[in-house]
């Protein structure tokens, strides 16, 4: 027998794009005019799905569309999806911060959210005063907080500063204190969004442990949103994958995570047809792939592994000598590196008609954690001519690891820098 504690029925959420202000009054009047005549809201019908990359025709978008799911008591549901898939909107609706445009949620338990820890912290007040204020904002009564005060202070590890105004705290301490308050909440349903991204290793371990206690030990229901697939896999029992505001998968967490990665894998390869391919009069690109150490298509690469980018092209006309170029950009569009194939055979000897592949190998322990985008160019020397330079062909993610072999080692905090090689210290 299923014990459903939370049920989402056809939730949709519409947002208005652009400047809110111009035209608000006229839209409001129009809406009201339709309403008194007993007609439907005219702005509910229009609206595109929420795909940021394409330009829509309407000023209204659906951030969420017809979301349905059920959560059983004691289940830990992972909600995963790319940026802009609607995860945060869904959490906002679940935590009653904003209302859905249509549809509804039914719940059999109190919902408390850790959308962002430290909400309502007041810098002028002491740590102790803030524990009470924050606890009350999250829905605890004074009595509940008083009974747990010692535990909260101990868990936060801020005993010494507890009677100091919070504005004097380091950001790490603020987060510890805030998470400590939230961790001792006792709602039937807890909504958690990426709180684990902060704090040092020791505290993260504590926080994950606490979340596991909450879900496994105390049998409470947790809705967990994260980009950290390792954390999702280890904590959750069930997953839903969101894409452009729709649920594209609901079920087992392993499958959900795979679905999420599959979906992303498209960035690791590109195929062109005859019309669209980048080309010159003697050459056209056929496809590009990002490969792992086993020559398999892969989007996510461990920081220690080398990454192979393979370009395949077709020679359309004989008698041309040329070479290849490659540029790498990170997700802030910083040009990380540029490389020319200086010793290419194609510089000496013009290749015959046919299909050729070129591989570029980026060594391990070079790039910092992050998302990268590759471009490819065909050039001629003497005189130097760039035949074409195609941007944003394929991309990949570098994922940092902990441990002895990495530049990071056992340090778990913020590690800056756009490259992360292992240097010799003598």
């Amino acid at each position, binding site marked *: 027998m299923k014990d459903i504690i939370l049920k989402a029925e056809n939730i949709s959420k519409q947002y208005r794009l652009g400047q809110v*202000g111009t035209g*608000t009054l006229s839209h409001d009047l129009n809406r009201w005019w339709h309403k008194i005549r007993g007609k439907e809201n005219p702005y509910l019908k229009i609206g595109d799905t929420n795909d940021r990359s394409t330009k829509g025709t309407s000023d209204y978008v659906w951030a969420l569309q017809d979301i349905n799911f059920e959560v059983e008591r004691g289940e830990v549901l992972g909600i995963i999806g790319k940026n802009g898939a609607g995860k945060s909107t869904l959490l906002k609706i*679940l935590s009653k911060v904003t209302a859905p445009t*249509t549809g509804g949620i*039914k*719940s059999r338990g109190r919902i408390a*959210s850790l959308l962002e820890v430290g909400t309502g912290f007041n810098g002028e007040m002491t740590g102790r005063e803030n524990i009470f204020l924050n606890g009350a904002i999250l829905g605890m*009564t004074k009595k509940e907080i008083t009974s747990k005060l010692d535990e909260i202070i101990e868990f936060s590890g801020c005993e010494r500063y507890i009677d100091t105004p919070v504005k004097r705290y380091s950001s790490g301490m603020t987060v510890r204190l805030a998470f400590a308050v939230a961790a001792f909440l006792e709602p039937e349903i807890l909504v958690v969004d990426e709180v684990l991204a902060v704090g040092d290793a020791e505290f993260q371990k504590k926080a994950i442990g606490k979340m596991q206690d909450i879900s496994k030990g105390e049998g409470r229901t947790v809705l967990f949103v994260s980009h950290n697939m390792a954390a999702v896999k280890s904590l959750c029992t069930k997953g839903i994958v969101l894409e452009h505001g729709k649920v594209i998968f609901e079920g087992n967490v392993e499958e959900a995570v795979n679905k999420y990665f599959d979906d992303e894998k498209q960035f690791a390869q590109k195929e062109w047809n005859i019309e669209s391919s980048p080309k010159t009069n003697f050459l056209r690109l056929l496809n590009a792939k990002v490969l792992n150490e086993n020559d398999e298509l892969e989007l996510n690469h461990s920081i220690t592994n080398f990454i192979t980018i393979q370009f395949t092209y077709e020679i359309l006309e004989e008698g041309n000598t040329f070479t290849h170029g490659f540029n790498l950009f990170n997700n802030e569009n910083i040009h990380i590196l540029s490389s020319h194939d200086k010793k290419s055979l194609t510089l000496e000897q013009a290749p015959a008609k046919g299909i050729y592949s070129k591989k570029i190998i980026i060594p391990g322990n070079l790039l910092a954690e992050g998302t990268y985008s590759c471009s490819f160019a065909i050039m001629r020397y003497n005189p130097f001519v760039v035949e074409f330079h195609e941007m944003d062909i394929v991309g990949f993610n570098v994922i940092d690891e902990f441990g002895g072999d990495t530049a990071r080692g056992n340090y778990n905090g913020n590690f800056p820098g756009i490259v992360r090689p292992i240097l010799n210290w003598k």
Partner: protein
Amino acid sequence: MDSKNTNDWLFEITPKNKFFSLNFKEIWQYRDLLMLFVKRDIITVYKQTVLGPLWYLIQPLFTSITFTIIFNNVAGIKTGSIPPFLFNLAGIMVWNYFTACLNGTSDTFKSNASIFGKVYFPRIITPLSIVISNLIKFGIQFGIFIFFYIFFYFQGADLSLNLSILFFPILIAFMGILGLGLGMTISSMVTKYRDLNNLVGFGVQLLMYISAVMYPMELIKEKLPKFGWIVQYNPLAYVIETSRYMLLNIGNISILGLLYTMIVTIAVFFIGLLIFNRTEKSFIDTV
């Protein structure tokens, strides 16, 4: 069938609130938060100041002195047997309570957007906390009024009390409710139309001049018979006039005027509540 699978839901989240839905049970559950907000408002304002809560007293005292010089000494408004300073202090004190409530609550959604955007609690807690913390502020100011009352009494001023002072708390409650109602209305509308913010700023200042704060209500009828009705239809003027009657036994009490004030206050409060309820659910998308 398991009974859990029937429709025994604890709560539902729906697109719109019902018409006058004021969930008293929920507000009661969050009463500790209400008190903590009040505490926060009181103690944080004057942290890191030397004079601390004394600032609550400095403002009305200096305003009263200024009013006494300008309106009574220069302009020559007569306050009868009552010392003009005490007359002004009483008016300013009550007026301040109204404006503090109005200004504080009219900013509810905008200034709390960061909290409201992350956690849910009954939004009405915030304006309520402002009205209550201002009541405490008013209490402190009332203390200084009593001090000067006694001071002038021993100076030989002709001061007397009447029984109506027993109703003074009710009068103040109405002032708070009126400020709250107006504030809630404005705060809800500000989320969409920021223009209102500017209006409140100078509107409140202008309002003071037609609220009988620095002159007796009789005076305006006598001197400006054509425009006296503006003051007469202003419910705030009745509250101020009545509070002076209760505290200083000056002027007169108009039962009809008070009844009118009560009706307006209740109407404003319910309109405010209605608009506030409609706004609170999705204001975060427009603010």
